[in-house]
């Protein structure tokens, strides 16, 4: 694996040098009269250790403290068909194909595109701005990054077991299904992409997207693990220049077949449904954005831990838990000098209450986050950024986190 990582890094540097001449490259590398276009980005982020795991992603990395190298490519096979892909390595531990899909335009004169493969998320605004250049801050929004305690391959037997995992989404374990401790899922995963088919039709003021994929918004998958497909839609309206209003929906089977079987659930739908609303308005040197995501999961609950042996329940689930989470986010960016900007984001992530033996309590610990920062362009495609992030979680331990983070970002 290390050999592959080293080869990838060398290839990345080679491409950068090819494009660079005597300075850092600023344009993508092209071959074959523009048929092959290769871009790259590198980000080094530094921050103190996050002992409370506020900023960990589903790749088990602290997003404020990582080295990331990415290489994207687009190959225009014909006038109608392009192949797109991305290879990325984080902290040089492995190379992952984050994206690999074909983009087909059946009618060249119409803005109708079909994408097939490991495709970008349909849901939400942020996945299209998740790359560091488009994200005004170093941290990610809670809805798209923060790990709840829920897992698709493991289930709590009781409400008490779920409540014991409050605020422990970075390493969650339950007794039904896979009992190996693993990270949980965010409300919407912007870092891993789903596999399936996506169709987008665009007009001047309206873009409509629909997709059918293997995973769910919180648990994208390359291969299906439960036989259920997710249907996702997004409507983006641009009534005037600078204003984008987006509405997203996603619904699919969440719990893996293995976990359902372990819980004794023969019938029923144990899925995730997510609804999102986002607004962006920009003018002059300002960009303001607001996001709301509501996610609901249905989980089969065995009802008593005693009936679970080696991860398998001896009887059918007694009830279905309906779990909700709501994430609200507001952010703004202001360019106060050429090449210098300030940005801030305020967020809240809340959960509905379930009743355990000690009474009703949110099934996961609510989180608040404030991040304030800024960036300075050293050159057009090199940004130095710094941010201060404050996190607060409603748990007895590891309930606060304050971080000053720095990032150097380069792309071509």
């Amino acid at each position, binding site marked *: 694996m290390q050999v592959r990582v080293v080869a990838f890094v060398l290839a990345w540097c080679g491409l950068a040098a090819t494009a660079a*001449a*005597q300075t850092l490259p600023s*344009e*993508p590398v*092209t071959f074959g*009269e*523009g048929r092959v*276009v*290769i*871009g790259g980005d590198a980000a080094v982020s530094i921050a103190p250790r996050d002992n409370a795991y506020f900023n960990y992603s589903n790749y088990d990395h602290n997003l404020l403290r990582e080295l990331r190298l990415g290489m*994207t*490519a*687009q190959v225009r096979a014909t006038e109608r068909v*392009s192949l*797109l*892909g*991305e290879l990325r390595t984080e902290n040089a531990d492995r190379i992952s194909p984050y*994206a690999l899909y074909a*983009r087909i*335009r059946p009618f060249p004169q119409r*803005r*109708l*595109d079909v*994408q097939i493969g490991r495709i*970008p998320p*349909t849901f939400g605004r942020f*996945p*299209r*701005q*998740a*790359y560091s250049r488009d994200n005004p801050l170093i941290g990610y929004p809670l809805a798209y990054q923060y790990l709840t305690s829920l897992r698709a391959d493991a289930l709590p037997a009781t409400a008490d077991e779920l409540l014991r995992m409050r605020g422990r989404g970075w390493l969650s374990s339950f007794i039904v299904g896979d009992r190996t401790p693993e990270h949980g899922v965010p409300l919407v995963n912007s870092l891993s992409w789903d596999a399936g088919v*996506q169709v*987008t039709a*665009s007009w*001047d003021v309206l*873009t409509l*997207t629909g997709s059918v994929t293997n995973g769910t918004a919180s648990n994208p998958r390359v291969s299906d693990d439960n036989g259920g497909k997710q249907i996702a839609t*997004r409507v983006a309206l641009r009534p*005037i*220049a*600078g204003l984008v209003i987006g509405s997203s929906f996603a619904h699919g089977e969440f719990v893996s077949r293995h976990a359902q079987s372990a819980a004794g659930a023969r019938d029923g739908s144990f899925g995730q449904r997510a609804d999102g609303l986002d607004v962006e308005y*920009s*003018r*002059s*040197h300002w*960009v303001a954005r607001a996001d709301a995501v509501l996610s609901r999961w249905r989980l089969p609950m065995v009802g008593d831990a005693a009936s679970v042996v080696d991860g398998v329940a001896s009887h059918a689930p007694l009830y279905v838990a309906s779990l909700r989470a709501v994430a609200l986010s507001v952010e703004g960016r202001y*360019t106060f*000098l*050429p*090449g210098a900007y300030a940005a801030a984001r305020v967020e809240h992530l809340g959960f509905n209450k379930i009743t355990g033996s000690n009474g009703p309590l949110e099934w996961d610990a609510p989180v608040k986050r404030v991040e304030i920062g800024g960036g300075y*362009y050293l*050159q*057009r*495609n090199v940004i130095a950024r710094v941010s201060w992030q404050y996190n607060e979680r409603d748990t007895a331990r590891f309930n606060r986190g304050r971080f000053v983070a720095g990032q150097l970002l380069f*792309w071509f």
Partner: protein
Amino acid sequence: MRSTLRVAALVVLVSAALVLAVGGASSRSSAAQLPATGSIRGRVDIRRVIAPPERRPGITELGNPAPRDVPDLRAAVVYLETAPARAFEDRRTPRVRIDQRNETFYPHVLAVTTGTLVDFPNNDSTYHNVFSLSKAKRFDLGRYAKGKSQTVRFETPGIVRVFCDIHSHMSAWVLVFSHPFFATTDTDGRYRIDNVPAGTYAVSAWYEGSNRDTRSVTIPPQGGPVDLDFVVQ
């Protein structure tokens, strides 16, 4: 009567002589103040025309972006490295424009004198955000919609690279000179710099940032055109 005619004829002759004398002196004086000027003309041969920048692969996009124009990258700029002192006395404030149309700047290369006002009108239905981080001129016009325009005054000689913060494939060059002795080539690579005073000059051809060819040229005292071709790699 005859004497009156004689006097009148004498007055006419004297007046004519005076006019001729003053006029001749005046024209001799002008000739002494304004030396003959010439022009430098020729062709810039661009051996390898740079390909227009492509959009970065839009991996996160839900479909193909809207079509755009492809900029013409064949324009070079020829200019005098040094200029006579009186070339810096012109204090006019010219006004020119760089359009933003179909996600492309028109023209791609603009050469101006210091003090020139450059308008950046947006003719697209989407926002643009023109900016530059060049040493000669650092500015950020912010986002503005179709039909709006913003203006930048270029006061310092130098090379200014202009970009759009929203569309990374959009770029243009503004070359700012402190004298008027420069020209942008046409689509055939031809140029002409007029009104160059007699003397010997270093003349350079610039192409897309770094490709330069510098040559020496002499405008003879009697003026006239001088041919000078360049090759940029």
